[in-house]
């Protein structure tokens, strides 16, 4: 007869925070798994749009549509028009996912709100991915409205606008990851706000202006900004015969930045939650 309990045997196979792991002392309450916890955080964050509808859903759209109306007087068609529409659409993502999320995490950290999550057995990745996912989702209506309005305004073909279905989540992941990392790493709330604002301003200036006319150093800065690749992917889709390989490559950059920045943000959350 074996002296090893069934629990101890199965304990080796369950994942670390699982309830069956044998530990001395009183039994620990089960910790939620990543996906259910992520779903719960995502749903809760998404519901905040009901309370904070105007900043989360409308301001960015008004800003982008305003910029396009302004540029309509300067630009009439061609490559410049594509750059303006694509840049303005992705700007919605930058405003919400980068700027507002950086502000949110900065505020949460300064106001002691992280304690709430830190005293729950929730995996850090669930908090970061849930919030980032929700903020990326907030950009969907604004980006779609901006892209369609811009296409009508500048007379661009809408046949390939479905590319937005890939641009929004991937650029959203990249920019929300950056926003979360900035918000959680900034030593003070004001610096988190400033970081988010600067990131958004960069996305505005470098994304909306056509790349061909930029001086070389600014063009390099443009290449460093992850939102650029979302803008490029969208701009290419306006071609009569889009170079899909380039579109996929651009989106791949967004995805890679998203993975890295979300990993950094998760690390930053862990660091910020327990001092």
């Amino acid at each position, binding site marked *: 007869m074996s002296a090893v309990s069934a629990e101890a045997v199965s304990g080796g196979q369950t994942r670390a925070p699982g309830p069956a792991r044998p530990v001395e002392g009183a039994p620990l309450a089960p910790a939620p798994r990543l996906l259910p916890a992520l779903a719960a955080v995502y*749903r809760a964050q998404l*519901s905040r749009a009901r309370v904070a509808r105007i900043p989360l859903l409308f301001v960015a759209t008004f800003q982008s549509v305003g910029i396009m109306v302004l540029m309509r007087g300067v630009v009439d068609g061609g490559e410049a028009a594509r750059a303006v529409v694509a840049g303005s659409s992705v700007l919605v993502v930058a405003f919400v996912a980068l700027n507002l999320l950086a502000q949110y995490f900065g505020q949460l950290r300064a106001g002691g709100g992280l304690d709430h999550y*830190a005293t729950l057995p929730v995996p850090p990745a669930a908090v970061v991915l849930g919030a980032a996912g929700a903020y990326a989702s907030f950009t969907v209506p604004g980006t779609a409205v901006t892209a369609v309005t811009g296409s009508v305004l500048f007379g661009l073909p809408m046949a390939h606008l479905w590319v937005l279905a890939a641009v929004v989540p991937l650029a959203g992941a990249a920019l929300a990851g950056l926003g979360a990392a900035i918000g959680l790493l900034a030593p003070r709330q004001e610096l988190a706000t400033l970081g988010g604002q600067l990131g958004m301003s960069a996305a505005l200036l470098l994304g909306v202006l056509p790349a061909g006319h930029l001086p070389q150093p600014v063009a390099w800065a443009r290449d460093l900004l992850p939102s650029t690749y979302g803008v490029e992917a969208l701009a290419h889709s306006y071609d009569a015969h889009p170079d899909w390989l380039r579109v996929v490559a651009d989106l791949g950059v967004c995805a890679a930045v998203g993975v890295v920045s979300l990993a950094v943000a998760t690390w930053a959350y862990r660091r910020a939650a327990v001092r």
Partner: protein
Amino acid sequence: MCTVRGLVKTYPAARGRRGTPAAPPVRATDGIDLEVRRGEIFGLLGPNGAGKTTLVRQLTGLLRPDAGSVQLLGHDLVRHPERAARLVGYLGQQSTALDELTVALAAETTGRLRGLPLAAARAERDAVLDELGLAPLADRPLKKLSGGQRRLACFAAALVGERPLLVLDEPTTGMDPVARRAVWAAVDRRRAEHGTTVLLVTHNVIEAETVLDRVAVLERGRIIACDTPAGLKRLVGDEVRVDLVWRDGPPLDVPEVAALRAAAHETGRRWSLRLDPERARAAVAAVTGGPAFAALDDFTLTTPSLEDVYLALGGADRGLVKG
């Protein structure tokens, strides 16, 4: 069930800015020993800045102590701070994370993040909201509620997903008496049904006297006394507290009043005295009869409270709420 030994946490010195001197390092908890028993409501009483919140943050794994040990139900929380979240239900002072959620969603989400499956989280959410009388507010965002209601909603969230230890940091701040009663009834029920232990941070002496089984008095990061409220009161003996309020000023020309002045703690028109019953009777007789009575606006005679204990133990005379 919870044993704390030699807990020390020092906040580093704040760098001085131009024109202001640097603040010295602060020992927020300075060698704290504590023993909380299963099923009791244990209180931490002290003025603001005494180190109460720093202490509970170390017990909940939010803050790493510089030295010392925390054992909770057989788990070493200094070595494994992440286990605290699976043993402790915590109600902090801030509601930032929940402010923009509805009361129902705040409770449900917190339950899910405590590891409850969806159906169980919803069932517990409904039960807790009913228990605390929050059901009519279930669909309102916390942001739109009054301070006391918001606090109650956060308390509800802290209860969803049962834990053997509840750490409540000033849970009843801003609540009306109905909400307070709901909180203490909910705590009592959990204690009776599940043997739940409660660690309560408060600076409200009345609350401390009525709900606590035992209380530790904190002052500048140290525990200066720890006993039952009645036991602590015995420390100040049978001294009685006499409060005198003068109409304009004390009639110092009356010799009995002039003699009392040495023992009085004066705040404006109010004199506070701690006297043995014999002298208290004599003092009251002196001020209520004779010429001093004309100058007297009001007087009260009370048996010792935890506040008197706190003062008698050498606590600084500020920061405790009496109401």
